[in-house]
């Protein structure tokens, strides 16, 4: 993404505050306008749909709980994509890494849940889910850095390999003997993460039966840590340098192999952590396809949030709201199934990612018209010509 952005450097510039506020808002707005047209196409009113959606997502305590539960998934997978973006890598493998992360935390729970309380299982599950996710990202990272494989293709292939591997494990090895369901046994209290009702009760919000659990706090902490890592540490500086200019990084003595592998491992670990939320926080067992596309939503979230933790929190709450509100919407307006979210997701990726620059020339032109009186002619003009 950083590489794409640098290509417009030659033209006139928008002020930074406009570039970081109006451009993403316009891009996302375009995605939603087209989604509205799709809703019109099936003969329903988009405005009415938005009303149901907002009420379903934020209108009552349980809805808010579900919204934040889904947002937790997307925050972690979004951060995973963002960290790789900063290193100039496109990690499409979040889905597979989260799947493997699920194996990690499920193994922790299966080993410990009958003997210890949840707070002993929790750090082990945290470490194993992050570790399994990191290893699943390490292989494509290493192959890309050392052997020159295309990281996008390799991570896509690793998603499919992970899917086959996990189906095989669940069917042949992890499901209890005599059970036909391809899932593990249900964990005991030692493998169940506590809900967050105590945190929201003082605010007057009753999250009801929603599965919002402490993984939400893990995700928020991860946002802070990623911010500190990327903008406040030496490693983060090296990651960003590699992302901006691999040649400059090499010239500055930064090892591209080392940074690529480390960035991919951090990315995979974040994606792996996501598994805690559905596996230990909600279902208390490992199921086939429990990730359910959250790894891919992370791509939309990272693009929309411009790979910044603050943007990612906002974008993941938006997608959390779409998931929760979309379920309500499908109930109230049966013609609009939850698949609409996937359409919106694709449009957000298209407009905030691939068509990122579509509105910029127009905006830049508009801005130059507004701001021209303030600039004195002699200072601005010759520079433009020289370029």
């Amino acid at each position, binding site marked *: 993404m950083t590489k794409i952005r640098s290509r417009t450097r030659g033209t006139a510039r928008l002020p930074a505050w406009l570039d970081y506020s109006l451009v993403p808002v316009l891009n996302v707005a375009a995605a939603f306008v087209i989604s509205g047209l799709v809703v019109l196409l099936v003969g329903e009113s988009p405005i009415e749909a938005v009303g149901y959606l907002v009420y379903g997502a934020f209108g009552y305590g349980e809805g808010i709980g579900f919204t934040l539960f889904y947002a937790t998934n997307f925050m972690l997978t979004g951060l995973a994509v963002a960290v790789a973006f900063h290193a100039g890598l496109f990690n499409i493998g979040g889905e597979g890494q989260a799947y493997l992360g699920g194996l990690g935390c499920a193994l922790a729970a299966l080993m410990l849940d009958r003997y210890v309380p949840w707070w002993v299982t929790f750090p082990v599950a945290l470490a194993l889910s992050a570790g399994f996710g990191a290893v699943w990202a390490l292989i494509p990272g290493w192959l890309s850095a050392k052997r020159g494989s295309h990281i996008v293709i390799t991570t896509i292939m690793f998603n*499919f390999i992970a899917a086959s591997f996990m189906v095989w494990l669940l069917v042949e090895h992890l499901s209890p003997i005599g059970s036909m369901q391809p899932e593990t046994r249900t964990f005991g209290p030692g493998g169940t993460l506590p809900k967050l009702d105590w945190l929201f009760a003082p605010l007057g919000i009753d999250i009801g039966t929603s599965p919002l659990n402490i993984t939400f706090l893990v995700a928020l902490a991860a946002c802070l840590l990623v911010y500190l890592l990327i903008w406040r540490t030496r490693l983060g500086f090296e990651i960003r340098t590699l992302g901006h200019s691999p040649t400059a990084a090499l010239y500055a003595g930064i090892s591209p192999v080392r940074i690529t592998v480390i960035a991919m491992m951090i990315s995979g670990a974040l994606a792996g952590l996501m598994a805690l939320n559905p596996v230990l926080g909600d279902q208390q067992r490992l199921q086939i396809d429990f990730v359910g596309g959250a790894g891919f939503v992370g791509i939309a979230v990272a693009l929309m949030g411009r790979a910044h933790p603050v943007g990612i929190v906002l974008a993941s709450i938006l997608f959390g709201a779409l998931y929760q509100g979309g379920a309500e919407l499908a109930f109230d307006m049966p013609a609009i199934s939850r698949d609409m979210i996937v*359409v919106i997701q694709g449009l957000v990726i298209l407009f905030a990612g691939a068509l990122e620059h579509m509105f910029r020339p127009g905006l830049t032109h508009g801005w130059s018209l507004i701001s021209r009186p303030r600039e004195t002619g002699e200072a601005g003009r010759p520079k433009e010509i020289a370029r």
Partner: protein
Amino acid sequence: MSFDALILVLDSTIRLSVPLILAALGGLFSERAGVFDIGLEGKMLIAAFAAAAVGAVYGSAWLGLGAGILASVALSLVHGYASISQRGSQIVSGVAINFLAAGLTAFLGYAWFSRGGQTPPLPPSGRFQTLTLPFADAVRDVPIFGPIYSTLLSGHNLLVYLGFLAVPLTAWIIYRTRFGLRLRAVGENPAAVDTAGISVAWLRYRAVIVCGIFCGLAGAYLSIAQSAGFVRDMTAGKGFIALAALIFAKWRPWPLLGACLLFGLLDAAAIRLQGVSVPGIGEVPVQFMQALPYILVVVLLAGFIGKAVPPRAGGVPYVKER
């Protein structure tokens, strides 16, 4: 394995590899012109849906095929606009197209037909029927040659033969025509093509449209030739297997045929070998067979078995002036 069983496996290999061949050939045109396309899956999916929807409503296989191609080309043009005109990331655009197609097909299918995302079953006129080659019935009892001719070669639908004919046609276009020469050049060194006074953008747009047509054929094959209707997520990763085959073939038409047949054979064998014990190895998990194409591509891309070098300008938007 008996001779008859072998023929049956090879027969299903042919059926299973046709969509791969068509989609991979589409990808070949696009990627040879320097536009990476990981959206083959999405284009196939939307074509499968459009073909089945139109085929079911109007009862015509040809109308369905046309609709499938149109839908796929429309997504191709979105990809082209994003990656050629807007110079956006081709990978991101491809990802977007896959989601767009997955969402739209499920959403529209659910809303229009109220069958949980499926299209209504197609009438016989809405499908491509199997063709019987001349004398297929007469020679059926001839040993060896009979089954090969009447089961393996005869008894497929039109799109199967079209898919196999498309390979030599593509090889001829890519290597023997002016368009093909320019197409390859624009994928390796667009600046040189531009210097010769040929529009890089228009050339790439044509390549992307050809890719859309092929993906449309592949998608329509799935829903109105191989089966009798569309079901949710019908492509199930076939677009990515086609992409894998394209890389495996190092972006060349004839090896592409080989790679698609190999992956088709793996698929056919996976169905056949389910629960069967292979001498010396034991029972091969069906999941391993399904993952094998992906594993092979990872190994190939890592350079452990030969080296796959993509077109040099692939993935890079062309900027005319600096």
